């Protein structure tokens, strides 16, 4: 279901670009899995891989045992980071079925 959010970003990519916002998606998926997803779903923005949940933990977003077979994954969250590296907006989804209206 969280693909809905990525799909929403792809749909509004032109608007993001016009606003000077570069969307970047991060998950525990390996680069290979992300590449398959990009190919299948036609995503043209960057998908980054954090299979060891190193960055996910650095952002305190770890969902322990949230993935299949009890894998640790990221809880859904979004951060808008300005050019100085400062967070300007943050959102923590409470329901995985909620796709942020972009």
């Amino acid at each position: 279901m969280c693909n809905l959010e990525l799909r929403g970003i792809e749909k509004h990519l032109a608007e993001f670009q016009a606003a000077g916002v570069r969307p970047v998606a991060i998950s525990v998926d390996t680069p290979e899995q992300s590449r398959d997803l990009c190919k299948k779903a036609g995503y043209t923005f960057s998908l980054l891989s954090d299979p060891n949940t190193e960055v996910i933990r650095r952002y305190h977003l770890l969902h322990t045992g949230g993935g299949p077979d009890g894998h640790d994954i990221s809880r859904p969250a979004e951060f808008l980071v300005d050019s100085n590296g400062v967070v300007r907006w943050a959102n923590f989804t409470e329901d995985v079925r909620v796709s942020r209206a972009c």
Partner: protein
Amino acid sequence: MADLTQRRRNWPLWAGVLLLAAGLLSNALFFVSFPGQQFAPWLNLALFVASAIFFIAGLRRAIAQPQVYRGKIAGWIFTVISVLLLAFTVFVFYISRALPAASAASPQVGQKAPEFALADTNGQTVSLTQLLAGSNSAARPKAVLLVFYRGYW
């Protein structure tokens, strides 16, 4: 002996049918984005609860006054279907929200976003600093939107 065709229509059962249909249709709201979409799961749940209430009310009428109201058999069928769908909806609702609470330790508005360097789909390492500076293929952005998603889909 009461004439079967003379019995009154059991309106709560019909209201239940409409609410059940609306509840099923509301599942589609997850696939569209509009302002207020975050309330779609609650709406879905409320419609199923309401339909179950109407079915139970209609069924009670049909059982209590079978000579007045129709729908004793249909009432049972709809009530069972409605309650099963409600149970499934509650289950999905619970599973969908079984997320750890947002941590206060996560970067907050006004704080610096922690630096990172991760592999992209080509295996190239990309850092937050690089993303903010803009790469050779893209101009320097005004902002970067970091979207953490669950993966495995």
